[in-house]
């Protein structure tokens, strides 16, 4: 990333090769539209190139995934769907060790870990993260109380985290 900051195009290309599947994949899951996902991917990477200082520290993959989701949601919002909070792009100090654990994850391994979650936890997590719906919309469609949805999201995220830590240490 330091080399990208120094306007090194080769370093930028390496960054693109490593992360474009993540950026494109997140945008595609949110938008279900290949052309729009490519637009997001292009916007995200050109932004990184023109303003690399936006990335401060922590894990790059974790950061760029949040940017990708936020930009995809900009498009969702412009299509006039429901408003939803952005993921913090600069907020608190990362838990560096855990982020490294995640960085070593391939999409494949995370998908397996997610599949291990009970559906009633996995669904609100996936719907919430990619589906452009807020927790109260999930509650309305499932007929469950808001509090229950949030508890399931929290339990599911904790299990996912634990599952991933195991995968790494084994």
């Amino acid at each position, binding site marked *: 990333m330091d080399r990208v900051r120094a306007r090194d195009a080769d370093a930028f290309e390496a960054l693109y090769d490593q992360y474009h599947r993540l950026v*494109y994949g997140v945008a595609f899951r949110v938008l279900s539209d290949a052309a729009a996902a490519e637009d997001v991917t292009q916007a995200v990477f050109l932004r990184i190139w023109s303003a690399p200082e936006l990335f401060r520290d922590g894990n790059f993959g974790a950061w760029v995934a949040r940017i990708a989701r936020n930009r995809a949601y900009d498009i969702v919002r412009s299509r006039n769907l429901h408003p939803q909070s952005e993921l913090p792009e600069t907020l608190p100090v990362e838990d560096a060790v855990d982020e490294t654990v995640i960085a070593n994850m*391939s999409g494949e391994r995370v998908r397996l870990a997610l599949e291990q979650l009970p559906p009633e936890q996995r669904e609100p997590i996936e719907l919430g993260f990619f589906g452009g719906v807020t927790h109260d919309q999930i509650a309305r469609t499932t007929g469950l109380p808001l509090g229950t949805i949030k508890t399931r999201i929290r339990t599911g995220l904790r299990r996912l*985290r634990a599952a991933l830590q195991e995968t790494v240490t084994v």
Partner: protein
Amino acid sequence: MTPHDELLDSVAAYALGVLPPSEAAGVEAHLQTCAQCQAEYRELRPAVTAVAYSAEACADPTAGAVAASPLLKARIMRRVRAEAASRPSSRRYSPAYALAAACLAIAIITGLMDLSLSRRLNRELAQSAAQTQTIADLTAADSRRYHFSDGMVVMRADRVYLMMHDMHAPPPGHVYQAWTLAHGAKRMAPSMTFAPGNGGVAFVRLPESATNIAAIAVSVEPDGGSLQPTTKPIAVVRI
């Protein structure tokens, strides 16, 4: 379940980014003050990153999963290489960089060493401060700054900027309205109406000239604004 357990659940929903903006702002504020929720947030964030990674497109397009077209990379790299060639190693003073610098300067000036708030400010500024003039005014050594409890007025030459944070959304059917008092005047004159963004931050340039302003006030008024204040001002700044 205790009320705080409910908050911890909300922190999880916040980390996943599924709270409506108003509720997210509440959780963000609570996170500033609660160590337990901060710890929960730090623990859950990697799991949220993992959820994002689950969407990572397959390296092998023949596996059937989605993948970006190689043409996309060619398109992006063409632009990047063209720019890199035209600006060898010299650091570009990008608008985004100037904006970040301005926000940092404002955060320091206002004593807001609060990342979350300066991030929200950043967003407001990004929308209204597209012009370098604004950024230059805000950060210039010769600009005059007047603090009040939840904000600041910045003046430079004849330009006046009003910045407020920690604002509630106005009641339905209402807006915030700025008022200016000219030197020697007895009554406040109506200035522009505005509303804070999602983060409770407002940043506006007032249309009046800075040269003849003795005081600025802000009050809540019905939509469309009023000719004179109808509620007690929430802020008054003497210049």
